[in-house]
């Protein structure tokens, strides 16, 4: 096989893996949008906040250390312990559930029956608030996140492809783990929403608030549930992105890449978020590989958005979104 084709295949595969990362963030958006019609601008920051909290717990950082030191003139930084990754993840997940309750209690509850744009604005406010809170609680420095996910080249894939094709593919172990985790997440979320009592209640709320109330569903409970799940998905996304490139505040910007993913996949489809992520991830890598050299490179910055724009023009509901039927 010519080298060019092999390089392209490798680029495509790596694109798929990167797409999984986009999909993980997009998934959180879809969950909240499906259940409440809210476009949650804060989803990226949620992932950042989750990752910060996880690192904080793991390293035994004292929350608000800077603030405490500034006020009381102390020199506190650490509790002096390190927690095992598993314990820290469970604690971080608990914090995300707590956060969901706080968001419901102090933001959503007061905005019931407001138009979607109001709720959207509220999530923008929440995004900046959470970013600031993360900063004050855990500090603004770039942190290393290691929960024991293997990283670096996968030797098996390299040697197998080398012996079969004469060229060893470079696939990162972390990306493989991320793909498996994303697949498990999607399968369990789909099963949950299709076959469980709470899942059915969730879909009911997404469909019609009044009717949901009339069959005895508590909207507040469902909202806490949805935001908790979205928080958990954000934690998973935060772990993956954080392990890959360190926990830093630019993490919240990955939310922007989730937008074209959503436009491709449809805002209301969980499988759509995954497929959209894969298409964007692979598309931008292949585009960069083939077209990039001709026009001076750096196509990865804009390719996803142009693709999304094309979709908006020709198929506004996305690949898997519910068809927009206008009844006359």
């Amino acid at each position, binding site marked *: 096989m010519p080298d060019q084709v092999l390089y392209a295949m490798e680029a495509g595969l790596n694109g798929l893996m990167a797409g999984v990362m986009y999909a993980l963030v997009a998934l959180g958006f879809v969950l909240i949008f499906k259940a409440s019609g809210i476009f949650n601008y804060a989803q990226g920051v949620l992932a950042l906040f989750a990752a910060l909290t996880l690192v904080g717990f793991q390293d035994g950082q004292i929350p608000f250390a800077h603030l405490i030191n500034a006020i009381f003139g102390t020199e506190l930084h650490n509790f002096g312990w390190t927690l095992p990754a598993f314990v820290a993840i469970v604690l971080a997940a608990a914090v995300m559930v707590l956060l969901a309750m706080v968001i419901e209690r102090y933001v959503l509850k007061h905005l019931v029956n407001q138009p979607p744009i109001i709720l959207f604005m509220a999530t923008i406010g929440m995004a900046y608030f959470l970013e600031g809170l993360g900063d004050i609680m855990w500090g603004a420095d770039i942190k290393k996140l290691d929960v024991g996910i293997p990283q670096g080249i996968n030797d098996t894939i390299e040697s197998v492809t080398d012996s079969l094709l004469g060229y060893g593919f470079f696939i990162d172990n972390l990306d493989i783990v991320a793909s498996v985790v994303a697949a498990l997440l999607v399968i369990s979320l789909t099963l949950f929403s299709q076959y*469980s*009592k709470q899942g059915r209640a969730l*879909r*009911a709320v997404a469909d*019609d608030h009044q*009717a949901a109330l009339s069959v005895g569903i508590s909207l507040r409970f469902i909202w806490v549930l949805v935001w908790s799940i979205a928080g958990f998905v954000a934690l998973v996304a935060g772990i993956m992105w954080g392990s890959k490139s360190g926990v830093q505040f630019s993490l919240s910007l990955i939310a922007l890449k989730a937008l074209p993913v959503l436009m491709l996949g449809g805002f209301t489809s969980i499988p759509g978020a995954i497929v959209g992520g894969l298409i964007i991830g692979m598309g931008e890598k292949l585009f960069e590989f083939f077209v990039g050299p001709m026009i001076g490179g750096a196509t990865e910055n804009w390719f996803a958005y142009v693709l999304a724009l094309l979709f908006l023009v020709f198929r506004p509901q996305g690949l898997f979104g519910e068809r927009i039927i206008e009844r006359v």
Partner: protein
Amino acid sequence: MSDGTPQGYTTEDGRRIGGVLMEMKNITLRFGGVKAITDISFDIREGEIRAIIGPNGAGKSSMLNVISGFYVPQEGEVWFRGRRRGPMKPYQVARLGIARTFQNIALFDGMSVLDNIMTGRLTMMKSGLLSQAMWWGGAQREETLHREKVEKIVDFLEIQNIRKTPVGRLPYGLKKRVELARALAAEPRLLLLDEPMAGMNVEEKEDMSRFILDVNDEFGTTIALIEHDMGVVMDLSDRVVVMDYGKKIGDGTPDEVRNNQEVIDAYLGVAHD
């Protein structure tokens, strides 16, 4: 007969009507300065079909919304099963065993008919969040049990052939029937129907009337309904409350109400002083 003994009464067709299931005492409901309901009292008895009728804007729907907890009245007491009901959220009222349908149909359009009806049983499902999430044995057995009950209702309302159809695609009359099925799935103590015949053609109205009577007969469900089609109401109900301009102007059997001068005036439109 309308103010029957505490033990209940027997209808003309020989059905036994029990004691008081729900009692509204001096209900007044205001929206800002507008009085939607003024000092209305009536009761609903175990096993009866009770209608609330009146011209447009009489406050019938408001009254239904008070019963189902969507509105909280400023004055008056709501008693259900011998206990005074405090201010409650609609979902809490639903859990007490009061199910309802809506005038403008509120179904879950994206879900299948079966799934829609299954939501009616949500409040009765016991297994917790964790076992649901893990799809443990208990949750699975429970689902099967509830499916059986739902299938019975599906058969009863003759909607077997559309079980898997997304509700959004159904015609109006069938949607109404699915909504009834969802309310029935909750095995309610009290079933509230908000204009069950609105917008239906004659044939659909006949079907719906038959189902309402059958539900009452078969499951012994107490039914309170709102309707402005006088003919239908008079045939269906055991007792009728008549409202006009937010006030109660009549209460009794269909015959009593039909001969009530105030009711006749309200329907024929005599000038109000």
